[in-house]
């Protein structure tokens, strides 16, 4: 456990090493990056085996940092952090495997990539609001470069939009946090201290502060109507970056809502709860319907990410242990699944066929040319639909149960979202790989496409393995998550019914 902070330092070191290695050869940079990411993930898994879940987070590092402002370098981990750390390591390793074919400026690509990962690890480990915010913002600039330099459709616009939206969201968070910090006497940024100080603020102030912080984080989580950056940005990004962005970085926003906004201002949550729930539901339904009519398969997946994050936000809004546990599990599950989907569409299909338009792909009957990719995409699609047997099912089931407890209408509306997800997923799977109606004839001019390389296979198997293992044995993660929700900070805001 004590070694967990090294995930951050390793990633940063790896970033610089990658940059240097990139000057010698692209292959050197790739291997350095893979080694770093795998090593960091290895650290997390090693910590996971020895992890005994408890209500309170376990402190890893606690040093003085800015005494004059009360900011401390305080890293801690509880079950929720561990879940997301495992996800980060997995998504990072898989993402690097799927970026194996980046040939231009490879060293810089992996340098930015690993810096982003370092920031993400930092966010999940932070227990001090200032430190949390520093890591959160640290992640923004590498995202911009990853998309702007190595992206595809509309990349400069997509990158700028993503960066500005993220920064605007964090500006809101900063305003709210500083306000709370200042009003509380400006002694300390520790989450527990801020929470106990905020508990004494008048309700109106709590409501306003909560709005700033929660909706600021929610921008990055893709809550409707702040989600418009997500489809554009994810489509523009290169495959490895999309996997990380949709898979992990969106979870940063939701994690911020859960870890910072909710425990600090319970009165604020109570006020905003219906609004958040309905925005989440609208996001689920609207994004799903838009995904149903897209012509570019990457856009379908981009919108599906917004839809799935809607489930996460609904779980958080319902604010009972079952719903929140489901939301965290969904964060993990969707991280893996989004990675799979983008990997297939971006790396396996687009890099070979150079088209993502469903109208073009349906003529190719790709399931014959790329059977491995077809199988992976079917599995990823099933997982995305929330099909039983994969990690999405226990997560969505738990969220629906928790939502039903809070309000049956919310659960019913969300269940509709499950159906819409099935429809658009089935459509995109069918059109991308299995041709439309009646295209069973051997396609004309089907020159053999390059075979699926070993990094792609490895990455796909890792992700599928995670989806299936957690789908069949969700207790592996739920046994971490559920006890963490018993901590005093969470108990004040997440109430109602034993899980």
């Amino acid at each position, binding site marked *: 456990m004590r070694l967990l902070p090294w995930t951050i330092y390793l990633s940063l070191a790896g970033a610089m090493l990658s940059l240097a290695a990139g000057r010698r050869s692209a292959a050197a940079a790739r291997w350095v990056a893979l080694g770093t990411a795998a090593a960091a993930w290895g650290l997390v898994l090693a910590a996971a085996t020895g992890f005994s879940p408890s209500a309170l987070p376990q402190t890893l590092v606690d040093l003085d940092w800015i005494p004059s402002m009360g900011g401390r370098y305080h890293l801690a981990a509880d079950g929720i952090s561990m879940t997301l750390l495992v996800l980060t390591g997995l998504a990072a390793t898989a993402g690097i495997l799927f970026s194996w074919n980046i040939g231009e400026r490879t060293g810089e690509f992996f340098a930015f990539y690993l810096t982003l990962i370092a920031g993400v690890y930092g966010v999940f480990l932070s227990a001090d609001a200032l430190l949390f915010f520093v890591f959160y913002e640290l992640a923004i600039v590498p995202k911009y470069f990853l998309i702007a330099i190595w992206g595809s459709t509309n990349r400069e616009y997509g990158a700028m939009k993503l960066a500005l939206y993220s920064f605007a969201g964090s500006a809101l968070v900063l305003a709210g946090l500083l306000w709370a910090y200042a009003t509380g006497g400006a002694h300390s940024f520790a989450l527990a201290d801020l929470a106990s100080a905020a508990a004494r603020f008048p309700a109106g102030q709590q409501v306003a502060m909560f709005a700033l912080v929660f909706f600021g984080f929610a921008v990055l989580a893709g809550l409707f109507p702040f989600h418009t950056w997500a489809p554009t940005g994810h489509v523009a990004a290169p495959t490895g970056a999309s996997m990380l962005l949709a898979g992990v970085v969106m979870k940063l926003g939701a994690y911020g809502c859960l870890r910072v906004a909710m425990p600090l201002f319970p009165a604020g949550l109570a006020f905003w709860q219906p609004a958040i729930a309905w925005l989440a539901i609208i996001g689920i339904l609207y994004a799903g319907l838009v995904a149903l009519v897209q012509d570019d398969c990457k856009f379908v997946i981009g919108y599906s990410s917004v839809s799935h994050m809607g489930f996460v936000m609904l779980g958080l809004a319902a604010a009972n242990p*079952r719903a929140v*546990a489901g939301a965290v599990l969904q964060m993990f599950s969707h991280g893996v699944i989004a990675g799979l989907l983008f990997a297939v569409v971006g790396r396996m299909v687009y890099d070979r066929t150079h088209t993502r338009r469903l109208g073009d792909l349906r003529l190719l009957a790709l399931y014959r040319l790329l059977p491995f990719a077809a199988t992976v995409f*079917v599995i990823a699609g*099933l997982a995305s*639909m929330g*099909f*039983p*047997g994969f990690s999405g*099912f*226990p997560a969505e*089931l*738990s969220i*629906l*149960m928790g939502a*039903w*407890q809070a309000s*049956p209408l919310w*659960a*019913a509306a969300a*269940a*509709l979202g*499950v*159906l819409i997800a*099935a*429809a658009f997923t*089935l*459509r995109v799977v*069918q059109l991308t790989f*299995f*041709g*439309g*109606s*009646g295209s*069973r004839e051997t396609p004309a001019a089907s020159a053999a496409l390059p075979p699926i390389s070993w990094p792609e296979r490895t990455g796909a198997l890792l992700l599928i393995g995670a989806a299936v293992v957690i789908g069949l*044995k*969700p*207790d592996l993660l*739920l*046994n971490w998550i*559920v006890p963490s929700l018993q901590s005093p900070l969470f108990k004040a805001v997440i109430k109602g019914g034993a*899980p």
Partner: protein
Amino acid sequence: MTACPILSIAIFAPWAGALLLALVPRASPALSRALALVASLSTLLAGFSAIARFDPNAAGYQLVERHAWVSALNAHYCLGLDGLSLVLVLLTGIVAPAGLLASWRQPREVRLFGILYLVLQGCALGVFLALDFFHWFLFWELSLIPAFFLIKLWGGPGASRAAYQFVIYTLAGSAFLLLGFVALFVASGSLDFDELSRLAATGGLSNRLAALGGFWPKAVFLGVFLGLAVKVPLFPFHTWLPPAYAEAPAGVSMFLTGVMSKMGVYGFLRILWPIFPSEIHAAATPLLWLALGGVVLGAFAALRQRDLKRMIAYSSINHVSYCLLALFAVAAGPLKSAAVASSALGGAILQMFNHGLSASALFLCVGVLEARGGGRRGIGDFGGARSAAPVFAGLCGIAMFSSIGLPGLNGFVGEFLIFRGVFGIVPWAAATACMGVLVTALFYLTFWQRVFHGPRAGVSAGAFPDIAGADRVALAILVALMFLFGIAPQLLVGLFNPLVTAWAGGLPTP
């Protein structure tokens, strides 16, 4: 807990077979077919060993396996066997290999076909044996995927659309089913069917659901009902079925009609009725009308069909609706005596089994006709096939008569018991349903006459070899079973009679 987990083996043996097939990428078609058939026959083996250990008179579930699974959701891995599930396991054990035999000459991508078919078989068994919602739903949903691909990749010209419609329809129903169970879990804390039914029997479940207020308690019932109704299919949720059955290849249609439609009826008997007895009772009359709609309109629609496969598809709707008719009649009450109820329910179970046999045999026959006709299967495309293929005509005729319900063949017993039971409870419904029987006879006889009798015409005018090879084996076995269970139905009845009697005994009689 038994020493040997027969039920788990039953479910996972076909899957193991599929895995084996998947790991041998360069298997020859002959090897793939043989491997698939062996794996498929494992179910029959498991069924017989289950019979050996099964005591029909013991109450409750037998050969139970129960392990904790997802503690946060109180979900368990729970399998169990009673008379109803045993009959359905046996049915699956018979129909599945028959379907594979019917697909013996299918040349395209034999290995993938085998893998998908075996996965489908395993899922069906899972549905019949699972007693906890978490993995029951897993099997229920998972069965859609191999079915989808089997229809789409090996089906007729309209297969993609038909498969898509089939899956979407069922998934829509499943979404409602899921929501219903979410509500049940929140109200009761359990996903176990047994616990839920015990809670419902005392009225506790209704009380807890009533706490939701508004129309939500009814919505929960409707949700579970819709999910199951789409699968049966109950009129008017049946529109996905004719295209799907018609476009699917012969072997797959056999499995769909033989086994998958029974999943829906099983769901009604295992889930809806025990958990929502009072709600079904309250809604009985509209439900009876729906079942009757399926019976009568299904039969009339079949009469109008030119496409033989669609004709049998509509006939399936008709036959399966009899089972639901029986159930809704029993739920409607008032019951003069328990015997009436046990007759209806026993008839429903028998009808499930027998229809499985006869419908799959009929699809096999039409598959043969289609293969001979180069893809054509219209009723006007054939004529006088009897003189060209006498064995085939004979076997096909027997299957048709079984479906009509001729005494001496298996189809009669089930229908008779159902009518006897329903007539004793809601005579008007029985009278209306008789129309279905009449019209069924009408269209099957028309089929027989147009295709097999008269001068040789259409496809049968050319080369029309008699049934041979795997087709013949399969059809012969099915027909033999039709005779067997027609003459000696007690072989089956003995397995579930105490169960049905117990059900009937638990119902209120004045």
